[in-house]
């Protein structure tokens, strides 16, 4: 009984925002800002950029819910994948815009060997969990961005395959296959980094 009420509340958050109910926007932001920020940060690798993108994404989402969508559409909306999808699209737009305007070559901003080197050096002095986090980031950096986001959504955000498919606009079975293949690459990358760090 109790869990039914909870589910109902979560479902209706989009409707609550649509109706401009007191505190609904805050609830939406508080509920999703950390997850969206973590995701954007790992895609863009820059806290400032990630913050801008998340702010923009949430504002667009709120505007859509309050002004553009009718109540029916809000009721049927799957909030989490929808928000991730907006954030993802904005992050890609942002990165593309930066890519054309940036003076530094693409590899600098995208794969950033300098930063990898730095975090590798830092890893030697880091406590275990930070070291693990750093090596995870390095391993992720070796993946192409198309599959990197799948790993983030699946393992950092713990999304279901159905949700991920909705975020990246693909089919569930395709996502499953790509995650499976990427996992192997990721593990190989992690092993290599582990060996390097151990030396």
């Amino acid at each position, binding site marked *: 009984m109790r869990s039914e009420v909870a589910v109902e509340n979560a479902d209706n958050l989009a409707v609550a925002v649509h109706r*401009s109910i*007191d*505190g609904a*926007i*805050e609830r939406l*932001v*508080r509920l999703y*800002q*950390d*997850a*969206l*920020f*973590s995701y954007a*940060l*790992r895609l863009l690798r820059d*806290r400032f950029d990630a*913050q801008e993108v*998340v*702010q923009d994404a*949430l*504002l667009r989402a*709120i505007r859509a819910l309050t002004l553009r969508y009718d109540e029916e559409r809000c009721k049927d909306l799957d909030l989490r994948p929808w928000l991730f999808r907006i954030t993802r699209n904005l992050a890609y737009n942002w990165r593309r815009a930066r890519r054309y305007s940036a003076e530094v070559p693409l590899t600098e901003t995208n794969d950033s060997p300098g930063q990898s080197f730095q975090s590798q050096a830092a890893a030697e002095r880091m406590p275990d*969990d930070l070291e*693990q*986090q750093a090596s*995870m*980031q390095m391993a992720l950096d070796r993946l192409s961005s198309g599959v990197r986001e799948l*790993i*983030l959504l*699946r*393992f*950092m955000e*713990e999304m*279901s*395959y*159905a949700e991920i498919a909705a975020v990246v606009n693909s089919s569930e079975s395709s996502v*499953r*296959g790509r*995650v*499976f293949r990427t*996992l192997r690459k*990721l*593990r190989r990358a*992690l092993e290599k980094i582990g060996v390097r760090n151990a030396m």
Partner: protein
Amino acid sequence: MRCNAVLEKLDAFRTGELRRRELEEITAHLASCGSCLQELAEIQRIATRARGMRTSAPEAVFERILMSTGDRYAEVETDLGRMWVGFNARGITMVHPRAQEAEAFEDSYEKRIGRRPLRSAIPKSYARSLQRAAAGTLPVDTPVDLSSLSAFEQKVLLLLRRIPRGEVRPYAWLAREAGRPQAVRAVGNAMARNPIPLLLPCHRVVPTAGGIGNYAFGSALKRELLRREEAPVDEIEQLGHAGVRYVGCRSTNIYCFPTCHDARRMRPENRVPLRSVQEADAAGYRPCRHCKPLAVAS
């Protein structure tokens, strides 16, 4: 089930995203296959490490969204009691003592600003600057939104920020500074209608004829606020009773409003009480460039 088929579904197995039959088959397979079981543990390890990459969003995200989504209000606890504070993307719009219920505040907000506010959290910097203003400590300049007021009212209210903490100026001074020396009464009305008391310090404006004068929240509170700002309240009233409007300085031949910080630095033996601009002029004093007493209508 063969290992290859199991491996492909192992991650979905981990989260239970499989049909019941597949779940059972894989469970059975894992019971007898050590290498697949190890694979599962490996995926779980990666999942744990990936979860470790989660970060919290900076507080600025929340505050920016609060301010960008229409008019809002919140309750703020200050030394002068609880206040309602309205705000939007452009800044603070309204401050009102908590005496009113939420509903009544929303009504008066809608009536004055023209939009109905949502109750919400408030950016920390806004709450802090109101608390500082109520405590009489040095104010922080906070953005304000006066767009629902007339151009003259906006001008007059923003001029209030030029009166330093601990000092007072007459209504007539404000009228002159706003470029309409005759509009003393209009200035008085603008003060009475100040939507953002404390932050726009209308309590620092006093009657031209002397004394402390009225305040939307009562003259007792006005006195209290001025005291907290270290204004010489008793002296202001005494001088008012004695008809003294300005203080001249023998050594510099400059005259000031009595609360001007230059006036308060004069040595007692150099202080000359003055009743009018004419008197100051006749005695050869020039007006202070800081508090600008010249041309205050008498």
